[in-house]
């Protein structure tokens, strides 16, 4: 009887140790996923903030009043301005004569469509893409563009202003999770500020 009790204790101990080891490994993988998510978010953020501030300024026209900018309700690619909306989840892939892979297989890179179709910051509102990582698989990326108050950029504005907030959200099941096991998305925010009229 004593031996059986001892075995139960030993088994519990072994299970507990293995569980600790597993959670340590999980944390390591989550850290790796977080790093990758950050680099993906920063790449898209750089892509967006390199674009023109507004559709009205893409032709080199200077805007002196925010009232001349695109309405927040009209954010997104404008078909009437000749822009092509990306209604699907955008992705990049390599094409090797009919064989497509999300990673470099020696074929021709078909890059994200946003780079060819979009030309200003608010085109990216509602934009979604999937980014492939060799070790982690696909990361889902979502973008929201909003006008923000110039004095309190944390709060959104229904009026047009000289500042657009770009929020890039990256989600993947390997990212860190909260106590309830829900994935905590990586959210990167930055401001695109129009200051060309000062030049």
């Amino acid at each position, binding site marked *: 009887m004593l031996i059986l009790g001892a075995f139960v204790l030993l088994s519990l101990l072994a299970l507990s140790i293995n569980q600790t080891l597993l959670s340590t490994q999980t944390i390591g993988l989550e850290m790796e996923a977080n*790093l990758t998510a950050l680099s993906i978010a920063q*790449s898209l953020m*750089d*892509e967006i903030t390199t674009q023109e*501030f507004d559709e009205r300024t893409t032709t080199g026209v200077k805007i002196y009043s925010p009232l001349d900018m695109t309405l927040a309700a009209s954010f997104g690619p404008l078909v009437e301005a000749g822009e092509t909306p990306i209604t699907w989840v955008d992705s990049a892939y390599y094409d090797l004569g009919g064989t497509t892979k999300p990673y470099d297989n020696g074929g021709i890179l078909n890059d994200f469509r946003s*780079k060819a179709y979009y030309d200003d910051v608010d085109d990216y509102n509602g934009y979604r893409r999937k980014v492939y*990582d060799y070790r982690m698989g696909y990361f889902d990326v979502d973008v929201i563009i909003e006008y923000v108050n110039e004095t309190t950029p944390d709060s959104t504005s229904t009026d047009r202003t000289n500042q657009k907030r770009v929020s890039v959200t990256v989600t993947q099941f390997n990212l860190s999770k909260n106590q309830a096991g829900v994935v905590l998305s990586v959210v990167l925010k930055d401001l695109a500020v*129009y200051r060309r009229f000062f030049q």
Partner: protein
Amino acid sequence: MNIMLDYIASMLIFGILILTIARVQSNINTTLYLNTQSIITQGNATSLARQIEWDFLKIGHRVPGQKIIYADSTRLRFRSDLENRHFIDDVRYRILSTSELSATFNPRDFPLERETGSGTIKQNFGLVEFKLHYIDSLFRPIPMPITTESACAQIKGIYVSFRVEAPEPTVTAVDTQWAAISWQKLLFPRNLNSLYY
């Protein structure tokens, strides 16, 4: 007879006990080792990412003429006042062959060579993949190698992707693992772009 059975049973129990403890100990050792390798790898990847951001984002800083001199998928040569001391460095990045890093157990890793006015260093980050792509102002990929001054002037963005692996494998009961991490980023050096805001 009973004594014999007791001996056999106790030996059996002892054997199970030893195997259980050995397995737990093995798991602990493997995890500790894998964690150590993973931390080393993540540290290497972060250092390399910071270095690339530091260098590449300064391409063309205080350079009046040609900013990028040569560019292909594994090599980049550019000019920049990297240290902000009014001295233009001729900076070269290139990867070397795996035979240059034969001291590690990883057969796939290769060193990265970074050359500046201060000298040349061969860096061992555990790189197993390092790729560069270049895009113009309309985000179109520029065919490589990019050698002429006019073609180099078209470069507005640099897409960098790399994968770093641990120098030593972690042998588990199931398979052999290499701690690894991949990183990718599209960089827009300020001095190659005329930003609007």
